C-alpha cells in the first residue's frame, strides 16, 4: 500500500467508516506516525460535515425556488422582503463555501470557477451578427442569474485581499541583519509601481559568504518563485504576468534571511 493510495482513497473511506478492521488498524497506525495525515483527515471530515449539512442543503433549495419565483414575478410585483433575505442568505452561503475551499487549499479551483462564470457572461457574437450576453444555457439555471452580481462582489473581495499585508512580515521590511557583508542598494524596501515594469535589484556582497537567492512571495507569504542570484551585484525582476496586488520579496544567503521588502503592483 503506497502513501498515495492512503491519502487519495483511504481518508474518505476512514471518515465514512467504510474500512474493515484490519485496514482501519493499519490506517490508525499510519496516522499515529504522521501529523500531516492527521491534518488531512481532520480537514476532509470537516468538509464532509459541511456538505452533508441538511439545513444548508435545504436553504439552497429554498434559494433556488425563491430565485425562480423572483424571475417570474419581477415584471408584475413589487419588492418582496422575504426574497431579499433569501438572496442575502444565498450570498452568505456561497461565501462560506468559497472560504472552505480556500481553507483546504483550493484557491486554484475557486479562480477556475470564477473564470468559467466570467466566460459564460462575456458577450459573444451570434451567427447573424447579433451580440448577446452570456450563454443560452446560463438563462436556464436560475442560480446563474445570481452568479453575475456574486461574481462582481467576490472579485472585488479578491482584489482587496490581494493588497492585504501580512502582519508577520511587516516588521521585517527593510531589515538589516547582523550577518556582515551584504548591503542592498536598490530597490527601496516598500515601493509601488505598474505591473509589467521591470524592477532592478542591486547590492554589494562579499563572495564566499553564501549563495544568494531572491524569493518572491504573495501577500499571504506563499513563495511564488525563487531566483538564484548568479550575478555578482545586480538582477532585474520582470513583473510581466504578475497580477495587481501586494508582493513580498526576500533575499536569502543559503537558508538564512538577509533582507526583505515589499512591492505593490498596480494594473495599467
Amino acid at each position: 500500500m503506497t502513501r498515495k493510495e492512503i491519502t487519495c482513497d483511504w481518508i474518505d473511506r476512514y471518515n465514512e467508516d467504510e474500512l474493515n478492521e484490519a485496514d482501519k488498524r493499519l490506517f490508525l497506525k499510519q496516522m499515529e506516525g504522521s501529523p500531516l495525515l492527521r491534518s488531512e483527515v481532520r480537514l476532509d471530515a470537516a468538509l464532509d460535515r459541511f456538505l452533508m449539512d441538511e439545513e444548508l442543503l435545504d436553504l439552497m433549495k429554498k434559494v433556488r425556488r425563491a430565485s425562480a419565483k423572483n424571475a417570474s414575478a419581477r415584471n408584475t410585483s413589487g419588492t418582496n422582503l422575504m426574497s431579499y433575505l433569501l438572496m442575502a442568505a444565498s450570498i452568505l452561503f456561497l461565501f462560506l463555501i468559497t472560504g472552505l475551499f480556500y481553507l483546504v487549499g483550493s484557491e486554484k479551483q475557486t479562480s477556475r470557477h470564477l473564470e468559467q462564470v466570467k466566460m459564460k457572461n462575456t458577450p459573444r457574437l451570434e451567427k447573424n451578427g447579433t451580440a448577446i450576453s452570456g450563454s443560452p444555457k446560463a438563462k436556464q439555471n436560475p442560480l446563474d442569474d445570481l452568479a453575475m452580481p456574486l461574481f462582481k462582489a467576490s472579485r472585488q473581495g479578491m482584489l482587496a485581499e490581494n493588497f492585504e499585508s501580512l502582519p508577520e512580515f511587516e516588521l521585517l521590511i527593510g531589515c538589516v541583519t547582523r550577518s556582515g557583508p551584504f548591503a542592498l542598494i536598490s530597490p527601496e524596501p516598500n515601493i509601488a509601481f505598474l505591473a509589467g515594469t521591470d524592477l532592478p535589484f542591486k547590492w554589494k556582497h562579499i563572495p564566499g559568504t553564501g549563495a544568494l537567492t531572491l524569493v518572491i512571495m504573495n501577500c499571504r507569504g506563499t513563495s511564488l518563485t525563487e531566483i538564484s542570484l548568479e550575478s555578482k551585484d545586480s538582477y532585474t525582476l520582470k513583473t510581466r504576468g504578475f497580477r495587481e496586488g501586494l508582493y513580498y520579496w526576500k533575499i536569502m544567503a543559503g537558508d538564512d534571511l538577509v533582507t526583505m521588502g515589499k512591492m505593490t503592483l498596480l494594473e495599467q
Partner: protein
Amino acid sequence: MKTICTIHKLLLFSALFPAITGVPQSVIGLTQKEVENVRSHLETGEVVMHYTLTDTSLQINVLGRDILAICHSSLDPVFWSGIRLFRKRLSAAEPSDFLIPGEEMYHFLIKPVEGFLAGIHRLIIITDERLWGVPFEAFIQDDGLQGMGHACDFHYLLNDFEIVYRRSLEIRKTGSPSWQESGCRSNDACQVVFAGFSSLVHGDRRMTGLPGSGREINAIAELFCQKGIPSLLLTGDSMLKTNFEKTVGSSRIFHLATHCIPNRTSDGLTGFLFENSSGEKSPQNQHDLLSLNDLNELKLEADLIVLNACGSGMARSKSEPVDGFLPQMLAKAGAKNVLSALWNVTDNLAELFLVDFYRTWMSGKTYSAALREVKLQWISRRATAMPTLWAPYVLLTN
C-alpha cells in the same frame, strides 16, 4: 518505532536500579556515578533530557530527582530531512510552513517521553552536535487545535517548559541566577561591558551600519544605571579588539552586538566585526575581525556572555572536534551562561528582544525564566509571533 521505556521511583532507585531496568549499563550510556551526580544537582520540577543519536537510532535519557526514563527508538531518513526542513523554515522566515515540521520534531524528540514530563517546568537539553542548532522551544504540540491558524495560535513546547541547553552532563550548581543573585557590584564599571558595532560606515558600502546595536547597548546600560550599576560601553571608535580582550576576561556580563561573519573554510575568517584598531580607514581595511582563533584563547569568568549577532550560536571551529560551536567553546573557557542566536537576526528586532530580556531579568527572574517570558510575550503578538524572530535565541548554561 520500537520504544523501551522504564520509570523508577526515588526511594527504590539506588538499590534496585540494575534489577528493575534489566538493561545493561552500556545501553543506557551513563555510569551510575554520572546519574547520581546529575540527580543530586537537579531541583524539583526540572529534568535533564539527554539525547544520543546515530544515523538510525535515537536514545533519550530523562533524568530527574525522582525520574529515570530511557527511551530507545529507530530513526528513518525522514527524521534527518525533517530537522533540516524545520531549521530552514524557521531561519528563512516562512510564516506558517513550519507547522508540520514543528509537529514532526515534537513527535520524534518529545512525544516518546512526554508521559514523564508531568509536573515538570524546566527542561535541560543535552544534545550532541547533530541536534545543536535545533530550537526545541519551537516544537509544536499537535493537540488538534492548531487548525490553519497563525504562529501566535500554536502550542509550542515553550508554552509548557522553560528550556536551557547544556554541553555535557557535568552539572554544577552555577546555573542561571536572578538579578539579585548575580552579584553585580556598584563599584566596578568593568564588570558589565556592552560592545556595539558603530553605525558609521567609513565608505565601505559592503558593510552596513547597525544603528540598532548602538541603541541596544545604550538602552541596556541605562537599565543597569537605574539599578546603580555602572557599565562600560565600547562603541564607535572604542569598539576595538584590544578593548574587548582587556575587558572580557574580568567582566561578569559581556554583551556583544555586532556583525557575525561566517566563513566555512577558516577559523581565522569567521568571527565578529570590530572597528579597525590601526587608525587607518582605507576602503580595503575598514574593520577588524575577532575570529574564532582569538576566542579560542580566552579565559573567562563571566556569568553571562551575550552574542547578539547573526548565527553566533552556529559559528563553529574546525579545529575543535568536540565543543566546536562557539557557545560551547566559551562555556568551556569558563563562561557560565552564553546567550546566542542560531540564525540571522535583524538589527532592529535584535535590539528590542535583548532590551526586553534584560528588563525582564532585572525584574527578578533567572536568565532562563526571563528568556522564556520574553519569548511568550513575543508569541502573544501576531507581528512578532513567527519563530524566526524569537526562536533563534538559546541559552547554554554551564
